[in-house]
């Protein structure tokens, strides 16, 4: 351990071609398109802004209720409501460009072609820095989680999108699989530049008085503190075989959980549900990681990522 109290700490990270000046972004769907929180948070400090999932055309999402609070977190079944590629580029990109922060667009489709087409169109949109492929959303009938839980589908999908764009590609892997390593290999062999994990866990809540599922969509995705230890395990497993950087998320409530992910092998992290509770949490996470690195004599993120000691 060197004394770096006064030394400059290098927080920059290259996430598969996306140059982030610190390793902290926001999780797709939990920070809108950046501008919603801009009045409360200095979004220009983020390492990247990851926006809500979009497909080719407009999409209405699921009926209400779309969420319910549960111990340790929440369930959501928003159902990927969004403005489509054109709407997104027109309505939201001007603000996003103005931030000067890398923009990661979370994309989805109902088949390979749609994923590829969305990627192709976004390649022409100025200011898009990378694509997060949502192949693990538990809240849509077509596409979504079923895609992400079959390694062949994952490989085919990533390959198709790879052919359609030169943008950095970050498949977001499904957590409800027996062995994440299979999916890590499938995705990176097919041309992924980085990997993102974890999406929400498929879950459900029933109102025992009305005897009905609380979510209109019946099932939804569990996020928040509850899933954090599951996410750490998956990131740690994935890091054993990943040759590309990992973007980790799931239950980050402050710097501690972010650091845990990075020790487990993540190159960068995304703050999700916690934004709803404390909009400036991601800035706290940035500062907290830096303070931790200083305290532990780490000069750059390379010394933090994967530094867990297992013997």
């Amino acid at each position: 351990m060197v004394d770096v109290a006064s030394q400059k700490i290098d927080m920059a990270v290259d996430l598969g071609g996306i140059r982030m000046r610190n390793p902290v972004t926001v999780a797709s769907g939990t920070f809108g398109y950046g501008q919603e929180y801009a009045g409360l948070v200095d979004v220009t400090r983020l390492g990247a802004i990851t926006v809500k999932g979009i497909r080719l055309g407009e999409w209405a999402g699921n009926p209400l209720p779309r969420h319910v609070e549960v111990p340790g977190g929440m369930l959501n079944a928003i159902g990927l409501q969004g403005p489509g590629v054109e709407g997104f580029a027109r309505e939201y990109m001007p603000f996003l460009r103005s931030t000067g922060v890398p923009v990661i667009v979370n994309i989805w489709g109902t088949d390979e072609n749609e994923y590829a087409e969305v990627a192709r169109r976004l390649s022409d949109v100025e200011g898009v820095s990378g694509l997060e492929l949502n192949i693990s959303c538990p809240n849509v009938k077509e596409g979504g989680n079923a895609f992400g839980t079959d390694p062949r589908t994952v490989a085919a999908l990533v390959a198709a999108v790879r052919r359609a764009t030169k943008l950095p590609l970050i498949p977001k892997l499904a957590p409800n699989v027996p062995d994440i390593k299979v999916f890590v290999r499938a995705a990176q062999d097919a041309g992924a530049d980085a990997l993102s994990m974890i999406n929400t866990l498929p879950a459900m809540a029933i109102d025992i008085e009305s005897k009905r599922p609380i979510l209109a969509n019946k099932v939804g995705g569990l996020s928040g503190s509850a899933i954090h230890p599951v996410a750490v395990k998956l990131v740690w497993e994935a890091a054993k075989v990943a040759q590309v950087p990992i973007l980790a998320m799931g239950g980050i409530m402050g710097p501690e959980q972010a650091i845990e992910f990075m020790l487990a092998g993540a190159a960068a992290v995304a703050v999700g549900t916690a934004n709803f509770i404390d909009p400036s949490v991601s800035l706290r996470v940035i500062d907290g990681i830096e303070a931790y690195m200083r305290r532990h004599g780490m000069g750059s993120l390379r010394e933090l990522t994967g530094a867990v000691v297992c013997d």
Partner: protein
Amino acid sequence: MVDMLCEVLGHKPLTEVYWELDIAAPDIAEQARPGQFVHVRVPGLEAVSLRRPFSIFGAEGGTLKILYKNVGRGTAEMTRLSAGDRLQVIGPLGNGFPLCAEGVPVLVAGGYGVAPLFFLAGRLERKGVVLIGGRTAADILARDDFERIGWRVQVATQDGSLGTEGLVTDLLDKELAGVCAEGDAAEFFACGPEGMLRAVGERAVAAGLRGWLSLDKRMVCGVGACLACVQKLRRADGSTWIGRVCHDGPVFEAREIVW
């Protein structure tokens, strides 16, 4: 819109289930418009618990007032707050009511719906009448407050324990007849349960009057980012869109809403 740590100045039960909470929130109070709300992190809940939204009941001299009903886990925990405690509050949020009415302003409140309407009553250019409905006498709140600032108050309870026996919309029908008889115009401002809002909206449309309805949807972010609180809406040209109650509302004109 700010996110600030606010100190509790006062906190008292108004009835068995309704409470008034006063907090020091100068930045929010100064900006606040009637119909807007705040998003509150309830101390004592787990760190991962979502915020709770509450209408602004008052905002004078740097003090923000909330009138809330103890209905669940979060509000039960809130009842334990006392002066000097601190809580994190985002606000003001949402669009708020318009402040100049065409004709007599008719306010229609159900339950804690009096909260934004009392704030509105103090800021509207013109005084009018407020109709308060509830299941029983204990649900009728802020009656004196409205009278104190010069508003006429009519009450309806379903069990007849206070005011007229029946629904608040019965009062509205009578009031409407009276106003029309005097050849005056009227404009509705309503906050309460969805059934009541729909009924008020239908009457506004039928009478060709404007009706401003404040919707109560379960919220997560409160700022338009999560899409948990959406409502199908109609534009003037008839096309529809999906609005976020927290960001595009909570107040919508009756004709905008596709129920």
